[in-house]
């Protein structure tokens, strides 16, 4: 029971979403492992280093397209990766994704620690770590800025609104880490080549016995930022500044 799991998600790069009016065009969008999840993966690598005999294992829930994320995850230092395949459906309900992650962790029965990002880059619901913990009845700690394992105890430093809190946590446990916890580097060519030889495990989500998640409805639209969009570019610096100051005073904000 000494392995470190890092959860990650294959997400759309939101910078590629084109919003026109209220509709969104995803066709040109690239997909990637969420930026925040790269911190979770790196944190798992680092904890593993301090724990001889342990492995760092990736864990993701995603549709068939998310397979494209697995080699990438492995090239970032993980020893193996699990893909919970949702086939053609994209799971957007935290209830289902967290239960699925928890189900695989329970089956594998070898986790000392599960590391998530605070939130996924697409939905940023910040729910997954506590939900996994609830499903497994393990302790959870969120907003983690530093962590290490000492024997059978996790020592974590949390960064909260008004204070820095140091906690000791019984293992196995679930944590969510802040983006500031580390600075992941791009994988090197050698790591990319090695990733090809590492094991990938796949399980169909239908094979996991999950509780029903119903009664949730949602609809998306492009966010329209209602701003005046006045561009001040004509004239000398002083003239432009005068125009800006006058406008701000007129708006009553200066």
């Amino acid at each position: 029971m000494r392995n470190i799991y890092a959860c990650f998600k294959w997400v759309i790069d939101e910078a590629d979403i084109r919003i026109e009016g209220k509709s969104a065009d995803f066709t040109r969008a690239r997909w990637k492992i969420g930026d925040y999840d790269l911190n979770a993966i790196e944190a798992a690598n680092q904890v593993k280093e301090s724990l001889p005999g342990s492995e760092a294992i990736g864990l993701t829930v995603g549709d068939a397209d998310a397979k494209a994320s697995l080699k990438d995850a492995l090239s970032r230092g993980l020893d193996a990766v699990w893909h919970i395949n949702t086939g053609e459906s994209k799971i957007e309900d935290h209830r289902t994704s967290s239960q699925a992650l928890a189900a695989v962790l329970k089956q594998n029965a070898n986790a000392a620690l599960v590391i998530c990002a605070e939130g996924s880059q697409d939905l940023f619901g910040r729910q997954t770590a506590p939900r996994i913990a609830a499903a497994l009845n393990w302790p959870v700690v969120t907003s983690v800025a530093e962590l290490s394992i000492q024997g059978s105890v996790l020592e974590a430093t949390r960064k909260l609104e008004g204070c820095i809190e140091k906690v000791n946590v019984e293992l196995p446990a679930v944590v969510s880490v802040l983006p500031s916890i580390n600075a992941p580097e791009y994988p090197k060519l050698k790591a990319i080549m090695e990733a090809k030889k590492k094991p990938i495990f796949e399980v169909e989500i239908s094979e996991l016995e999950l509780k029903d998640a119903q009664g949730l409805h949602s609809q998306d639209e492009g966010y329209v930022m209602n701003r005046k969009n006045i561009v001040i570019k004509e004239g000398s610096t002083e003239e432009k500044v005068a125009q800006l100051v006058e406008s701000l005073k007129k708006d009553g904000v200066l």
Partner: protein
Amino acid sequence: MSKIYFYAEDEKHSRITTALIQDSGNLACALCFGKEIPASVKNSGANMIVWFEADDDSPEHYAKLLSERLVETNATAALFESTARGRELAAHVAGFLNAPMFSDASKLEIKTEGLSCEHTIYGGMMLRSSSAEGFAIATTQAGFYEREVPKKEVEEIERIKATEIDTRVQVISREDIVKAGVDLAAAPVIICAGLGISDIEDLAILEALAVESGGAVACTRGVAEDRGWFAAELYIGISGKILNPDLYLGVGVSGQIQHMYGIRGAKTVAAINTDECAPIVKSSDYALIGDYKEVAPALLAALKK
């Protein structure tokens, strides 16, 4: 009329949440955990306080107990202020109850059939309208509802001697974060330093602009985390500070969506940028195209007039 529980740390947030619940015709039950009832809960104007009393003052450690309470009393919803502790407690309870949860909800409505709300996704590019049938949980950020109830001491207190607290997480120490300068949330004007600021010395002119306009200087995530010019508490964005100033002035800020998310509530957004094609131009009320090295001193001079 049914019981809707809420957890909030800030007194104003407590009174806003009470207003939302009471306006929907329900009973507002304020939650607190630990040795005593904080003043923010005492004065929340709620219909009642439910106090889980024990030595442990970390609300997160009461998730299981709270879940049981919500089931026993047929609660129709539970709302949590979106603080680190509030979010963890909310999602942990949602996990125990396998309940839907809306994170950082705005336009929250409590209807007979359940909660409905809006929340942003894809780093703020899109808006998702969601509704749930039956029990649901939501977290809320400052400014999520337009009304607050006046300060009023709550009379009815239900005191629960909490015994089965989660002891697997032990708090070893707590150290207050020394506030790095002024309180950004209270500043009416925010002057924001972006990666377009090429020299650290130039921050002085931003500080001067802040002093002159009665505001404060903040920064983007890159300026805090990559350059280390500011403490991490001073960066604005989806993973940092969310602010609602009267005026936001971005200096050398490109306007990445994750950053702009943090100042969506600003009354006026202005920018100084050399690049007319920078994303911030499209997200601003006023975008002054020019080099900040010339514009900022001129602006300071104009403000001093």
